[in-house]
């Protein structure tokens, strides 16, 4: 059987190459992949695909009673429509809220300097609570009847 597998190599000569895989190429660690996934989550939930296809303005504009132009942050009355800035702001809050929970998980390690633990707890709680309630606020600004029937 060995002679059969060796047949092509009676005709073909294997070149003597000194190829080495470069040392900096290695399978990425799970946490590196997590960071890549988080960046893509931030971009997708910001509605980047919506921005590229529909090309909305970055901020809306309306004129007030005196004729002066006023900026409008949120595209009102439409659930599936946005301006670019509001999408980025909202998705930043989504990611911040998620990271707050991750930070909170890290505070349970047994041996940690007291200052570090208090700092992590503080950042974690603030991230979660802030992002959650500000997102509710954003939704209320976008849909004027939100949670009021």
């Amino acid at each position, binding site marked *: 059987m060995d002679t059969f597998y060796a047949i092509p190599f009676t005709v073909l000569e294997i070149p003597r190459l000194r190829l080495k895989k470069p040392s900096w190429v290695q399978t990425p660690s799970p946490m590196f992949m997590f960071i890549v996934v988080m960046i893509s*989550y931030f971009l997708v939930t*910001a509605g980047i695909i919506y921005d590229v296809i529909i090309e909305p303005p970055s901020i809306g504009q309306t004129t007030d009673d005196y004729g002066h132009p006023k900026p409008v942050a949120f595209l009102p009355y439409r659930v*599936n429509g946005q301006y670019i800035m509001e999408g980025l702001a909202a998705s930043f809050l989504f990611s911040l809220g998620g990271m707050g929970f991750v930070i909170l*998980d890290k505070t349970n390690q047994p041996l940690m300097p007291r200052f570090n633990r208090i700092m992590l707890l503080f950042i974690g709680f603030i991230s979660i609570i802030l992002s959650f309630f500000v997102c509710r606020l954003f939704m209320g600004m976008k849909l004027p009847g939100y949670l009021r029937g």
Partner: protein
Amino acid sequence: MAASFLSYLPASQMSHEKKSTLLTLMILTIAAILSFLIRLFSVLRFESVIHEFDPYFNYRTTRFLVDNGYYDFHNWFDDRAWYPLGRIIGGTIYPGLMITSTILYNLLHSLNITIDIRNVCVFLAPLFSSLTSIVTYHLTKELWSTGAGLVAASLIAIVPGYISRSVAGSYDNEGIAIFCMLLTYTLWIKAVKRGSVAWATACAVAYFYMVSSWGGYVFLINLIPMHVFALIVTGRFNVKVYVSYCTVYCLGTVMSMQIPFVGFQPIQSSEHMAAFGVFGLCQIVGFYQYAASKLSKEELNLLSRFVISATVVVSLVVAMALQLSGKIAPWTGRFYSLLDPSYAKNNIPIIASVSEHQPTAWSSFYFDLQLLVFMFPVGLYHCFANLTTENIFIILYGVTSIYFAGVMVRLMLVLAPVMCILASIGLNKTMTSFMKNLESTNKETPQPKKRADNSYSVKNEVAMAVVAMITLFLTTYVFHCTWVTSEAYSSPSIVLAARGGSDGSRMIFDDFREAYYWMRQNTEEDAKIMSWWDYGYQITAMANRTILVDNNTWNNTHISRVGQAMSSTEDKAYEIMQELDVDYVLVIFGGMVGYSSDDINKFLWMVRIGGSTDRGTHIHEKDYYTPSGEFRVDREGSPTLLNCLMYKLCYYKFGNVYTDANKPMGYDRVRNVEIGNKDFELDVLEEAYTTQHWLVRIYKVKPMSNRGI
């Protein structure tokens, strides 16, 4: 005192295992009942009626299947749609939904519970959502733990992203497809963890059920091979994965080809090639691992060099030959637009015009998922921190469905289950790790040793704060989901309701059914109706008349011809109507009551689609705008627009009515302008019927005059 009373209750006598089983059963039952009940808003507010457009087609085919049996259904050629082309219904639908309803209907009737087929269809989706809740529990239990499973079942019972396509009355493929998809995934994970042929066969059967129910099965047949490929790349490929994937791929592909609509696609189209490629790769990797365990190093090197060079040469030749001879079809329009979202916008106006196919904005994510968008990264983090064979699957599912949901808002439906699963993993891990920190108040356990960890003195208080915060979040989630379901996703679309009139009472607009029933009773049996494709399914199901184009939109040229007729002047349109044998024309007009999804708002799509084929090259979209580029129907409007057939049919005799006491006659309440062309007469059509609120207007096509001019 309280403790002694509690000790008399049977619950406290039970062992820990019995208590947990009871709790699990109770929570699952409550979740299943809840998922059924929350979808009943529109049945309670209106009646048990089929919603929207597509469900009417499914309802009509189910009625046909119940009345005529499976063989007639399989061979059904429908000559009442797409006149004069007809449609081979037996070969162009996914029959799973209809067959499920018919089996349920026959089962109930055999028990003498004579529920009408309409009610079976209306309540099928909520029933399957209860089953989805239970299947999600099993899937998450396999992936993580029982606690996470219970949280996932509760979250998915009320998540708005899933409710939107499965309310009572929304009788569409997605109602059962999500259940089939999650069932297939559960059985796949069970098979991969155990490596048993029995579970893998069950997975293949569930996959067959999935293929029969929805075109989105392509997602499954690409995700499972992607999972296997990820396992190969990360070095977790073993004999269990090999056995599971080979069984699932072979049996699943053969079974999926039994559906006439799928046919030979699994071995011909590019969308299925990834599965085939991974199948081949599995064999190679499996063989390599086997050979490595049996051969010495030099023998292995020789063998692998030979096999690699032979495989590369053969596969390149075969792939080139198949590609050049056209046997392998490239990715089709709908699926290609998922990879390149701008493709539909630039090339296929019909796909671009459907509002469900628009990309997703941030507010749709938050509206449909609320708390889950925050917990999704947490669940992902914990899965990445504890990588196992099954966690890699759920990570891949989550990442791919986030991308697809971002491209098309309709696919939020596919994202909702994985959001629930990953969020439940995040919530469960957070809660368990913090509840461990809570101090037990039970006096019977011995006092814990002095905490070795003096740096964390507020452990108990922090844990209580975290638990309270998560409870608050879950409560707001429930309120949000109920509000969203009640306000946004429970409208039947065929019946409209509004608060209006002098006393602010609720007004019901039942114009659509009024018009369809008028048509059913007052037109000839073989009358042909021309309308825009949105209303096709409803006309065939309720009015039982032949139509030209419907929501299946399989023939772009035919739809384009109808678009040309609507965009042209009356005499040009008359030629097209004579060519297509049209007897009646139906338009939807919302200017009287302020209904904004009417045909004038859809008109630009008719122009675009009408102008996109070769017989419509004389139609240019810019002719219908004012010189300054606006779309206006008042005096400033473009003359082409003010004289086209659609304008005339919508605004015929509208110039003589007052819609509002403060406004002039002919004031359009949707466009908020007074219309430009008021006094005109129709030459080739005559008004046949206008409904009570002018929503539906039907015109009869006059026959050609006896003495031609």
